[in-house]
Structures are given as C-alpha cells and as structure tokens.
C-alpha cells in the first residue's frame, strides 16, 4: 500500500478505521457468537471504527431469513454490548446484515454465500474484502476450508485491491502432529499471513500491559532475571466445572485446553527479551525464541501434577464430581487440574523455575502471573522480627480486577523493629475508570485492519505443542485413577507437593 499523505507520525490523534469489508461468521448460532462477536461488532461500529461499507453475514444451518438473523443480532447487542445502544448506529449496521442458510458440506450453500457477498460488494461497497470467522468445531475446519476454496470464495492469487482472511479459535490441534495437519489444511487455502488465530487472552489490556510494564519502565527490568527472581507462578483458575462441555472436554484436559495456549503465551510475554519494535514480526521473533528455549525437567513424574475434581459442596452449592458430569465416561482419565514446572534455558532465566497451573472448580476465578523474588538474607532484622514477611512479589492480575500488586515488607508501628508484608496496589479500574474494550473488539478490528501482533502464528502453536507433548505422553503411560480434589479447593495434594519438593508454596491468588 502506498503512503497515505493524511497519515503522519506527528498526528497520533487519528485512529484507524477499518476499510470496507464483510465479516462472515460460520457457526453464528453458537454462544460465543451471540455473547462476544456480535456485541463486539456493534461496539466497534458505535466507536466509529467500522467503515461505512461494512457487512455482517451469518452462515448456519437454521432456516432463517435476513430479518430473523438481524433480530438475533439486535437482541444479542441489546443484551451484551458494552457501549450504549444507539438507534443510528444500529440502523447503519442493520443495513448490511445478511444470512445464508446451509450445511458446512453443501456446495450449493457456498454458491449462495458467494452471491450474497458479491451483491454486498456492489450494493454496500464492501469492495471484495472478506473475513471468514470460523466459530465452529475444529473437525469442520478442513471441510469448510475446502468448500471456501472450491466455490472460489477464497483463492490464493495475490491481489492488491482486495483481501481474504480467515479467523480461527483454539484448539489448534491436540498435539504437534495434528496441529501440523491443521496448519497445512488451512495454508492450502489461505496464505499464512491471512490466517488469524484468536487467543482472546492476548486481546486483553492487562496482557498487553505486560509489555508496557516491562519495557516502558526502568525500575522493573533490572530485577527481571535470575539474580533477583526466585521463581515465577502463572495461574489460571476457574471456579466452574466442565458442565455441558463434558463431551468436548473428555480426552482434551486442562493442559491441552489452557496450558498449551494461554499459559505458554503468558510465559512467553513474561520471559521474553525486549523486541526491536512492537510489530508482529519482531514480537513473534522474541516469543518464539523463549518458547524454543523452554526445557522440561528430566523426571516428569516429579515436575508435573494433575487431578480431577470430586463432588461435594462448593461455596453453598452442591456440585457433581467430574466423573459424574452428564455425558462423561466414568472411567475417564482426563485431568481437570494440571500443574507443570518448566525452565527457560536462557542466560536471563537459567535455573529459575516457572510453575504453571490451571484447573476447574478451584477456589475462585482468577488469572495471574506472580514473579516471586529471592528472599532477603535477613541479617539486619532478626529472624523473629521477620517471620511474618514472605518474599517480595510482583503480581500481574490478568482477570478479574485487572491490575498489579507489589508485595513488600514494612515496619509494624510500635517500638519493636518488626517487619510484615504489605501490598501496594495498582488497579486498572482506579487509574482508568473507563471500561477497556473487550478483547474481541480489539481482535476483530485488528483482523479487519490486517494488523497481526496479537495473533500467534503456526510456529508458536507448534513450539507450544512440542513443550506439552512429552508431558501428555508421560501421563498417557500412567494407569489408575487420577487424584481427586475437593471442589472449591486449590487443587490436588500432588500440586502442592510439586512446589514443596523445591521448598516453595503456591501463592493463594
């Protein structure tokens, strides 16, 4: 694209509005689509970031007319949108809403879809730019990709005047081999730079703030290494069970569902070196280097832990055990809790363990990164005076209550020189009361703009599987029942033992 004279680095006021385009959503009847995608599209329109020539096309099996679909979008927007409902915004958006009825394997439906977008190109001025959002089970990816290509909705011929992009959600395979197959399937139809893999965590403000915290400040980076850091804990806990997703969850498990993507991405952002710039290419280069440097300890038995939640009372509610969930195989050996110790084999991090844990039916819903510093040698203040003092820690709270906490020791008022832990807190909600945009808003806009820094590429996906595959293989060799943990607790005893072996404990988030 040639230089636009109206854009200048001296003019930071101008936000970029997406160019003319149509967003085609497959699997538009799903929950994600109603609760996240449709409201995000509306919020973008309301903030004036969508182009006048914009269209939203739904593709699903239901027998709906355009009007019925518009009605569904309208209700979803009313219920879930972040910004206030404005009639003008809605009117403008509604003009470009279409629905195409069909099955994923029905060539005739793709013909209809092609006619619909061609008409939109003419009548709405979407100018041949189409993004396909595949909010569908991954087993349907190959089929949809094939049909998109066969109906010539997508081709690989380079064309400067228009673009085709595809957006997919996790899981990106279930191990290295399947991820490679999936990557090849998609890349047969779409060029690699047009494939946008959504990891909605990366769209969150706090996650992006990790980069600002580390590289826009001088006071943290000097400490951010093995000389000062004792270990790092990355936690993503949910208080709910698998519920209706039992069928999907069986055979997948917590490690594949969460560690492979979200937690390893958080690890990469925490441990990476400073990128040359914030461009997609440079960020990715640094993240890939870290993922490539990750090493598993020799004895996987002692470096991993897993479990399944038992039934019982959790916070005033009687809940089923994992094995009793509806549609679950009662002999399932799928883990609902997984913890893992990793090392990052770089000069900066040599010998510093990174502990990753995730689970369902844990104490509360929380995602955080805790950088725990080495203990102060304790010469000046006597042992008995510092018993209430733990290690200094810097905690990045990703959700909820986004912010940063620093824990340090302070003198207890009184005559004695006693020290205890206090915290200093930065809450996004305090400093910036304006609600930050939903992750999906940011990500959808980035796709329409063709801006890729927040999307993991195939290589990152493969590197993550390379880390996890040996663990999964090791677990597959074990027999017998998995350890059960009480719902609402912080996981199985094996998880605590994992840190206890190193003389450490999990932080209670």
């Amino acid at each position, binding site marked *: 694209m040639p230089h*636009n*004279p109206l*854009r200048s680095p001296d003019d930071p*006021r101008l936000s*970029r*509005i997406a160019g003319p385009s149509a967003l085609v959503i497959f699997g538009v009847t799903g929950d994600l689509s109603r609760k996240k995608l449709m409201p995000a599209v509306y919020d973008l329109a309301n903030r004036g970031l969508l182009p006048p*020539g914009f269209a939203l096309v739904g593709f699903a099996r239901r027998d709906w007319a355009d009007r019925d679909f518009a009605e569904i979008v309208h209700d979803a927007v009313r219920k879930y949108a972040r910004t206030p409902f404005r009639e003008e915004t809605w009117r403008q958006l509604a003009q470009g809403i279409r629905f195409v009825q069909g099955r994923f394997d029905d060539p005739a439906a793709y013909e209809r879809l092609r006619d619909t977008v061609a008409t939109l190109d003419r009548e709405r001025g979407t100018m041949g730019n189409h993004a396909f959002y595949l909010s569908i089970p991954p087993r349907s990816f190959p089929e949809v990709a094939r049909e998109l290509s066969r109906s010539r909705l997508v081709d690989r011929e380079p064309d400067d005047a228009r673009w085709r992009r595809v957006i997919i959600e996790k899981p990106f395979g279930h191990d290295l081999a399947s991820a490679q197959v999936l990557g090849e399937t998609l890349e047969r139809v779409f060029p690699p730079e047009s494939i946008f893999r959504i990891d909605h965590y990366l769209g969150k403000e706090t996650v992006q703030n990790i980069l600002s915290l580390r590289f826009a400040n001088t006071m943290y980076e000097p400490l951010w290494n093995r000389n000062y850091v004792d270990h790092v804990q990355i936690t993503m806990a949910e208080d709910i069970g698998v519920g209706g997703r039992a069928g999907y969850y069986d055979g997948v498990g917590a490690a594949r569902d969460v560690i492979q993507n979200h937690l390893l991405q958080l690890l990469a952002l925490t441990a990476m070196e400073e990128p040359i710039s914030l461009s997609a290419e440079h960020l990715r280069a640094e993240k890939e280097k870290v993922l490539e440097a990750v090493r598993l300890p020799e004895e996987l038995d002692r470096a991993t832990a897993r479990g399944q939640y038992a039934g019982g009372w959790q916070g005033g509610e009687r809940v089923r055990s994992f094995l009793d969930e509806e549609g679950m195989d009662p002999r399932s050996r799928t883990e609902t809790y997984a913890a893992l110790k990793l090392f990052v084999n770089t000069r900066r991090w040599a010998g510093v363990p990174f502990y990753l844990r995730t689970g369902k039916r844990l104490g509360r819903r929380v995602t955080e990164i805790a950088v725990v510093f080495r203990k102060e040698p304790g010469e000046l203040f006597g042992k008995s005076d510092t018993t209430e003092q733990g290690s200094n820690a810097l905690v990045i709270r990703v959700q909820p209550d986004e912010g940063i906490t620093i824990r340090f020791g302070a003198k207890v008022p009184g005559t004695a020189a006693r020290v205890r832990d206090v915290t200093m807190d930065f809450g996004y909600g305090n*400093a910036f009361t304006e609600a930050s945009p939903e992750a999906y808003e940011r990500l959808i806009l980035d796709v329409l703009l063709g801006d890729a820094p927040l999307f993991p590429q195939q290589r990152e996906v493969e590197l993550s599987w390379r880390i996890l595959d040996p663990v999964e293989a090791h677990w597959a060799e074990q027999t017998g029942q998995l350890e059960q943990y009480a719902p609402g607790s912080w996981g199985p005893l094996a998880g605590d033992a994992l840190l206890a072996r190193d003389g450490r404990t999990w932080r209670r988030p």
Partner: protein
Amino acid sequence: MIEQMPGTTISAVTRRLVTMRQESGVSALGRVLTLVIAAGDELDEAAVVAANTASNEHPMRVVVLLTREDVDDARLDAEIRVGADAGASDVVVLRAYGEVCSGVESLVTGLLLPDAPVVVWWPGNAPANPGESPLGRIAQRRIVDSAAMTLGPDVDRRFTGYTPGDTDLAWTRVTRWREHLAAILDQPPYEGVVSVEVVGAAESLSTQLLAAWLDLAIEAPTTCRFPVGDDPVEGLRSVTLSRPSGEAVLARETRSEAELRLPGQPLHRISLPRRSLSECLAEELRRLDEDVMYRRVLERLGHIRSQTNAGTGWMSEWSTVYE
C-alpha cells in the same frame, strides 16, 4: 457530596481535602492529572459536567477558578465536591474576589497534585497568548475553544501566540472528519489528489483548520469556501477530494449523519454526530505532549492567510496554488 467553605484559604481547603479522603475513602487513588478550568467570572456548569464525564477516562482533580476583580471586598470562597457530585474526579470551585485575584497562580499551586501534569482549560474567552499567561505557564497543556470566544478579528493573534502544548477545541472537533478522510485514502485506487475543496461556515475556525491540514498534507491546490445561504448545517459542511478517477465527497447531511460519495461505489451513510464537549475534552487529555500536527497546521494557515488572496478579515475565503 458538596461542601461549602466561605471565606477560606487554600491551606484550609487542602487540609479539608485530606480529611475528607481519610473519612470517606473517596478520591484516594490514581489521579492522573490536574485540570484547571479558568472559567472567568461566572460558573459554567456545562464545563464542570464535561470535566466530570471526561474524568471517567482520565481520573483527575478539577480546580474551577472564578475571578471577580471588580468586587471591593477581598475574599476567597471554596466549594468541594466529591463522590456522586464529581464523577471520578474531585472538584474544587474557587471564587476569588477583589485583590485575591491578583495571585491566581498561588491560588492554584497548593491544589495541584504532586508530580502529575497540569492542564488549563479556558471554556470561554482565553488570553491572547495562553502560554505566557500566569496560569498557562504552569501547565503542560493549554486548551482554548475559539468557537466559544468572542473573537472577531483577533483570530490572527492565535497564529503568532503559539506555545508548545497549546490546543484548540476547534481542532479537536474535526478529528472524526480527518479520520474518515484518511480512511478514504487508505483504500484503492491509490491515486494522488489533484485538488481539494472545503466548505463550511465562516464563523468556524474548524473549517479553516481542516482546509489548512489538507493543504499541508496533500500539497495540492486547496480552496476554502464559506457560502452564505440558507443551509441549516452550521460548522463544517463538506470536503471534496478530486482524483483522476473522480471526486470523493464527504458531506454533512444532518446533525448526526454524513454522506460519503465515492466513484463506482454505492452511497455510504456515516454516523457523524456532533462531538460533545466532554468527548472533545477527553480526547485532548489523552496526550499531554505537544501536538506537532496542530502547530504545523496553525503555521500553514497563518502562512496561507498572509500569502494568498485571503484578504483582511479572518472570515474571508481563500485558495492555494501549486505550480
């Protein structure tokens, strides 16, 4: 909560703010800047409301300064608003009478947040050279609003009295227009613009700023016209970018909508509501360093007005010529 403190001093106000903070816990955390509203001699509630709304994005302390030098009795009255009456900010309204007005800096200094940037906003008339004024000197950023000023021929002073950090809400009001115009050139056909026409109301400095920006960036003959007529739309009316393949026209149709006409494309309707005061203020507070583009546009406008057929009055039409 609103608390009146008649006949007081700044140190008493400061002490009271600290106590209120300890008692109720309100306004304890995370203020990012101090906004001084130099409101002249009468309290403009609209300005305070705009500041409170903008504080949702930029939590701040707001100091409203009202001066009545013509009163004999030298006195300072203060009013503190926190909690529900102040959005996400705390508001201190200072009413200075008589000789107290002579040291406006000293009135404000004690209330500035430590180590946080200071922004001064003149919602009505502003000094000719804001950067040289006593209040303007302590601020990183100075916001004036030429649309709210009784300007007359004085506008030309603005082109000489610029200090880095100055900005004008007349410039903020055209940001959305500029975004849409830039978005047009983001798309094919990537052709050069051969001429530009901007049409608007003569009273609106926004029209001239936008025209000067286009002239500066595109370097093509630009015309700025103020037709007189019965067109009900005030302010900026339309922008036409002419390219070899045809004209791209962005034109305001109603108070909330504009039309975009592009060759070979269907007519686009764009929702373009007039920007509220709080929206404009929130945008101004987003960056507190110098707005280099605004400076260059002001310089360009000053240059055009002195070089071309702009005539004497600041409301005259003008056009530029490129060889």
